[in-house]
């Protein structure tokens, strides 16, 4: 699979951006909620490049990626009023909105819409991105997660890729990979468990 070639070379540039900027975001969130245009510029300066990189990774089309970045930030601007400025995490929220916009775009050009779009829309609710523990997004956890991902076997890496960057459900993965659904579910669960365990270990260390 061609996309698997990319993953070993993935950089942690964007990830580090998210982590390093997390702490001073409550003031930025406050200004966004106050509808300060300058705050939107600051938000773009922090996350615009990362959002574009993620969306481009999914859609592989520069023009479409620009449209989707614009849509991402417009959504954030329009929904920030319900964001928890004290306990919320802007980075994870923006990444989720960006990823969902890109997946929604892929589904639209494949003719798969409606119910999936509503589901993604629901999962972008800013209220879901509150009460993030600072340590949950630490650089150490990011490094460990990357290392854990690289230790997965090719099938496990593939299903993770298909889930995160192509938005395929387990049933769709089974169709794509021409494997039994049960087998795919096993790969997904074991891969996620390995990643999760690595993060738990980092948290307890």
């Amino acid at each position, binding site marked *: 699979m061609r996309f698997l070639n*990319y993953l070993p070379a*993935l*950089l*942690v540039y*964007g*990830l*580090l*951006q*998210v982590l390093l900027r997390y702490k001073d975001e409550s003031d930025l969130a406050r200004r966004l909620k106050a509808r300060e*245009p300058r705050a*939107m*510029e600051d938000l*773009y*300066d922090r996350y*615009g*490049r*990362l959002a*574009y*990189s*993620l969306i*481009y990774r999914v859609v592989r089309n*520069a023009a479409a*990626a*620009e449209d989707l*970045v*614009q849509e991402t*930030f*417009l959504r954030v*601007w329009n929904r920030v009023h319900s964001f928890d400025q004290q306990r919320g995490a802007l*980075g*994870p929220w923006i*990444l*989720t909105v960006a*990823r*969902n916009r890109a*997946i929604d775009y892929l589904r639209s050009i494949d003719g798969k819409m409606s119910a*999936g779009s509503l*589901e*993604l829309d629901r*999962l972008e609710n800013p209220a*879901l991105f509150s*009460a993030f*523990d600072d340590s*949950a*997004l630490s650089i150490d*956890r*990011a490094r460990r*997660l990357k290392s854990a*991902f690289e230790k997965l076997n090719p099938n496990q890496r593939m299903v*993770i890729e298909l*889930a*995160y960057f192509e*938005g395929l*459900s*387990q*049933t769709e993965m089974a169709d794509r990979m021409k494997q039994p659904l049960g087998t795919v579910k096993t790969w997904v669960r074991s891969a*996620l468990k390995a*990643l*999760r365990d690595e*993060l738990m270990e980092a948290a307890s260390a």
Partner: protein
Amino acid sequence: MSCEELANMYELYALGLAEGEEKMEIAQHLADGCQACRRGVHQALALNSLMLGQVDDVKPRARLKRRVMAAIGVRHRSWTWAAALAAACMLVVALWLGEQERERTAQLADARRELLEVSADRDHMAAALRMLDQPDTILVGFGKGQPAPPKGNVFVNGRSGVLLIASNLPALQPGRLFEMWVIPQGGAPRPAGMFQPSANGMGFNLLAGPLDLASVGTIAVTVEPEAGSPAPTTTPILAVPVAGL
């Protein structure tokens, strides 16, 4: 389903990829205020964020920021390079138009001056022709039969003045012109106008105005500085006696 059974599905749920019964179960647990599932989904969101952040860095075009800001109704205040270029072009065009206007104004002034000069020449010529038509105008020829002198005629009229028409005039040095003189009998020469010969040595000068014929002795021409002289400074190239006409 128990929270333990759902624990493996939180990440897919947070990605919108959970299916069927598992998806409905997690949604129900969350709706019921299940703290374990809520905590699990939060941890899944953190893991998902860390995964999504691990992408190759791709730099977007600079204009994307302007598009994003425009989408929320904020226009970029600084000039773009295109606007700056357009302004520079407009400045160049304005300067060029200004220069054109100055040139046109100078040309108009030149044309106006030339028109005035032509108009003056025309008036001068018309006055000369009127004088020639007058029956009391007296014609005095000069230079005929001489080896290589200026030749021509002097027309004298007591009411209209003196008209000199000459040919074979010598070429002039730069900065020099011919000056005609009216020399009274027993008196000092009076300036009667400057003139320049044509390329073929023809010259024409009119002193318009009443003239006391009884006192005039001679009409003469000398070469003088182009600013004119109050009295002749060179030997006359021609002198035509008109006394007693």
